[in-house]
């Protein structure tokens, strides 16, 4: 019995791939399978060529694999699009004209006239649902579970539509059963089930960040639509109202951050969401947050640049942008979630940290994590707290009072009879404009003191491996599970993994980890090794090898495995 299958649906935008993906993952999870799904798509609304990869497993799977066990091509370009991933093990199912393409590829190809069957049921539109039924049939999913998922998904469309979809799924299911029964298919797709996963959560990165924001008490959210982060704003616009969250689609990213800071000044827990290009417009606003010491949480969903780049693809190219954005010096915190759980928890706590330290806090993620999802057991949300740091003000209140810690008591206009002043100039303790060199120095030192505090509060990196490692693999953000799985495959005692979900400031133990290694290897998705440079700067140690990916597409587990194998064999070349 295998442990893990990979199903790929590939076709044009607008062909309903996402609907099938969503139904299939939910049905499989409810059937006791672990699921992971990620999609890659073009920056267009109709046409083009997109695919979704779904891994189904008896144990948790959480990373993109290039392997294909079942491929369902939905148009003539589909097979060409994924042909490098097809192996002799792959089974291709679909319309004759789609599976006939790329005849040089040798693998099992089974013709299923989805469209014709769909027309018999009531329209071409059901073709995808028949395909869904076929996959569920191969995996021997409980049909009731499938029916429930369909009923839930088409609830708003009425019983007739639900019944037709159930009929379509049943037809697909029968096709699969007959193929197996008549030995028309060489492979079996049977997996052990784990009924614990039925109660798991199934979230993608965008939902995890948005839910984290709600759980963190975000109540003023503003954004300008930009891939891959738009979905976070959309989610909050749809679900936010019941939590008294104001969601604003603003005229541009400059106003986005300035509204958020105006709201923050008046006591909101402000949240903005963007990608690298939009963030470029926010840079002066970030500097304003630094000077005014106003709380704000900024989500930057990375995609490949420069400029418009590839809007719907993935990258880790904006670490340096986020790290250095804004005129002048001021402290900041940058988190880079490695998992869906991280995306939720780090975002939630970002709203506490930004108020506690009065520094901008970043959630730096990317298209890959935003568009990936898998089942998770717990978000530990019962333990989460919303911390508020507002003090009531009075006549003696000074917004920027110099204190031992560097943190001045935070208050908001209207909370007392004092005056709360915020100023973009170098300012006195009261918040008045000044050019006095002594006060200027004190204000700079105030910000430095806060940096020292947030350094002490930095999250330690996660270390996976034996203490007597020789090779230390260093990764950050969304590459977490990809690296982890590749290393599990490699299975070598002398290779350890150090993953960072906080990339600035770095935890003080980094130096020790890095210096202990005989060879340090960083893995990241940009052409220059931005995180490697940061590690070198902080540890005064040179990183030996940078494994860099700037294709715009995420590493696959297999690709990383091959690269890491070469590293330990001593013949890794860029």
């Amino acid at each position, binding site marked *: 019995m295998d442990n893990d299958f990979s199903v790929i649906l590939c076709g044009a935008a607008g062909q309903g791939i996402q609907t099938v993906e969503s139904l299939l993952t939910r049905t499989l999870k409810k059937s006791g399978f672990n699921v992971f799904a990620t999609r890659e798509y073009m920056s267009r609304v109709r046409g083009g060529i997109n695919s979704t990869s779904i891994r189904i497993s008896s144990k948790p799977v959480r990373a993109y694999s290039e392997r294909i066990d079942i491929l369902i091509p939905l148009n003539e370009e589909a097979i060409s699009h994924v042909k490098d991933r097809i192996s002799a093990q792959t089974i291709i199912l679909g319309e004759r004209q789609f599976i006939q393409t790329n005849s040089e590829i040798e693998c099992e190809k089974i013709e299923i006239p989805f469209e014709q069957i769909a027309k018999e049921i009531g329209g071409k539109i059901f073709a995808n649902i028949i395909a869904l039924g076929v996959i569920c049939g191969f995996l021997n999913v409980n049909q009731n579970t499938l029916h429930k998922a369909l009923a839930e998904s088409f609830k708003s469309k009425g019983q007739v539509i639900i019944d037709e979809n159930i009929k379509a799924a049943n037809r697909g299911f029968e096709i699969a059963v007959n193929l197996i029964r008549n030995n028309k298919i060489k492979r079996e797709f049977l997996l052990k089930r784990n009924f614990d996963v039925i109660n798991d959560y199934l979230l993608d990165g965008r939902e995890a960040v948005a839910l984290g924001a709600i759980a963190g008490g975000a109540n003023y959210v503003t954004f300008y639509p930009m891939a891959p982060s738009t979905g976070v704003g959309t989610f909050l616009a749809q679900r936010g109202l019941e939590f008294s969250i104001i969601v604003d689609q603003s005229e541009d990213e400059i106003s986005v951050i300035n509204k958020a800071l*105006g709201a923050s000044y*008046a006591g909101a827990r402000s949240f903005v969401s963007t990608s690298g290009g939009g963030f470029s417009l926010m840079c002066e606003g970030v500097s304003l947050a630094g000077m005014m010491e106003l709380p704000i949480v900024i989500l930057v969903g990375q995609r490949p640049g420069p400029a418009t780049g590839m809007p719907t693809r993935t990258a880790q190219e904006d670490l340096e942008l986020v790290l250095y954005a804004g005129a002048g010096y001021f402290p900041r915190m940058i988190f880079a979630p490695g998992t869906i759980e991280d995306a939720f928890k780090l975002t939630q706590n970002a709203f506490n940290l930004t108020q506690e330290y009065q520094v901008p806090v970043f959630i730096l993620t990317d298209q890959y994590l935003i568009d990936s999802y898998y089942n998770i057991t717990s978000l530990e949300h019962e333990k989460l707290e919303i911390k508020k740091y507002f003090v009531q003000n009075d006549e003696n209140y000074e917004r920027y009072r110099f204190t031992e810690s560097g943190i001045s008591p935070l208050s908001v206009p209207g909370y007392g009879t004092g005056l709360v002043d915020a100023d973009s100039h170098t300012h006195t303790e009261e918040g008045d404009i000044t050019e006095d060199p002594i006060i200027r120095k004190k204000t700079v030192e105030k910000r430095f003191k806060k940096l020292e505090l947030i350094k002490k509060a930095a999250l330690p990196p996660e270390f996976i491996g034996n203490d007597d490692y020789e090779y230390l693999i260093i990764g950050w953000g969304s590459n977490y599970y990809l690296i982890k799985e590749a290393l599990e495959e490699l299975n070598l005692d002398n290779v350890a993994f150090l993953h960072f979900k906080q990339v600035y400031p770095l935890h003080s133990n980094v130096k020790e980890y890095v210096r202990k290694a005989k060879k340090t290897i960083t893995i990241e998705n940009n052409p220059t090794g931005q995180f490697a440079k940061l590690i070198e700067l902080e540890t005064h140690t040179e990183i030996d090898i940078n494994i860099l990916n700037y294709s715009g597409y995420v590493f696959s587990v297999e690709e990383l495995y091959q690269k890491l194998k070469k590293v330990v064999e001593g013949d890794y070349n860029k």
Partner: protein
Amino acid sequence: MIIISKTEFDKDIEIHWCPGCGNYLALRILKESLTELGIKPYQFALISGIGQAGKFPHFMKSQSFNGLHGRYLSNALGAKAANPGLTVIAVSGDGCTFSEGGNHFLHTIRYNPDIVNIVHNNQVYGLTKGQASATSQIGFITKVQIKGVYNQPFNPPAIAISLDASFVARAFVGDIEQTKEILKKAIKHKGYALIDLFSPCVSFNRVNTYDWYKQNTYYLDDSHDPYDQNKAIQKALETKKLPLGILYLNPNKKTYEENVTIYNNDSTPLYKRELDKVKFNELLEKFR
């Protein structure tokens, strides 16, 4: 020097403006209007940008937010959204509002937040020493526009009226009492209120002086119907003599704070609100 009456907004601080600057009068007008309306310094927020007018919050007692060049209307909108109970007055000049912040000016009008927007219009850049502004007249010579301004001047009231701004007025700092009346009406008005406030720059604009404004303006009388958008635009487009007073009013518009709906049954500002954890747990259940 102008004698300024004593108010509880007075602040013991050196004022940076040139002697004779129109801003002294604007400051007096604002302080006296607030006093007459019974508003206390801690009950309102003065939100400003950059430029001579942007320094306003430093020269009077208020809750203040002196932000970046061009962005103050976005700051003001956010602050009002977070606490609708706060009176928000947004102050800056013509450069900050119409050039650097032109896009925010247009869109803030569309949102219609309940704020007062006082734009000191001296038709020149003061803080950067004498370049043309978006409202400088054609032919206005500066050390940059050496052959005179050739760009079409920005017409703030006409643009605001065309966007159906809910309150549009023009005023002149030289007329203290009239301007106070306009300002008090603007503060009491529900919705976005623009006051295009002529405030002469005595250092860098030797054309549009106190006398020039006196000679080239007139007050609208009762024959003007401020509820008629077409007539209001016509008035705003007059160039021979510039009309002063309330040009346009639309009292029937919902404010931004009303449109976001979270305050409709509960006026609690955001900083006092708590997450409904029961509802949150219910939401999470949908992802199982």
